[in-house]
């Protein structure tokens, strides 16, 4: 699965994107965030407060409980501040 990071989530993780084989037991957006959080210091910092990190599955906003399903791309980012 392709994982994208934006804004301060990107800065803390230290990556713009990565390809990852998501283990079968990781089924939802929230479970993936929890899984990533254990991957190192940058990830731990990015996901320290998982409620403020938003996600999009295949470019559509997704809630924490949304199943990853067959999505090819997931993005994690802070609340949006455009406009």
């Amino acid at each position: 699965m392709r994982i994208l990071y934006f804004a301060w989530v990107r800065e803390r993780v230290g990556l713009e994107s990565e390809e990852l084989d998501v283990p079968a037991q990781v089924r939802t957006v929230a479970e993936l965030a929890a899984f990533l959080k254990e991957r190192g210091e940058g990830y731990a910092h990015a996901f320290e407060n998982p409620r403020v990190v938003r996600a999009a599955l295949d470019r559509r906003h997704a809630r924490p409980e949304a199943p990853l399903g067959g999505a090819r791309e997931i993005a994690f980012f802070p609340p949006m501040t455009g406009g």
Partner: protein
Amino acid sequence: MFTVRIQSEDFDAAAEAAALARGRTDIGALVTFAGLCRAQDAPGGAPLIALTLEHYPGMAEEEIGRLIEQARGRWPLIGATVIHRFGRMVPGDNIVLVVTASAHRAAAFEAAEFLMDWLKTSAPFWKLEEREDTRDWVAAKDADDEAAERWN
């Protein structure tokens, strides 16, 4: 005519509004909203030097396209143009443009406000502010969420 553009270049608000209206005789109301980069947020605060807009390529266009579809479902729009810039901007620069065209003014005004309110909370853009000694990601405002929620 319904158009979304995500670009680093500046836009010409006038030319975009004129393009929507050109050759038509059914448009009675044309509303143009331009959002600009301001130098100062809080009185007494350090002035802003620059703003950098990061975005999610692909999703930004798609999400704004979905917002336009929602607006079309609510108001009888003849056309709409949304342009959102990314990259580094200095005070006085254009950031975002929304143009709406309808037969009547209430629809054009409301659709433009709806698009701006939802752009702020759902289009994947993030602002990084540079001041003399600081460099901060802008925090999302509760007021913006409330502005968007009023349409529900």
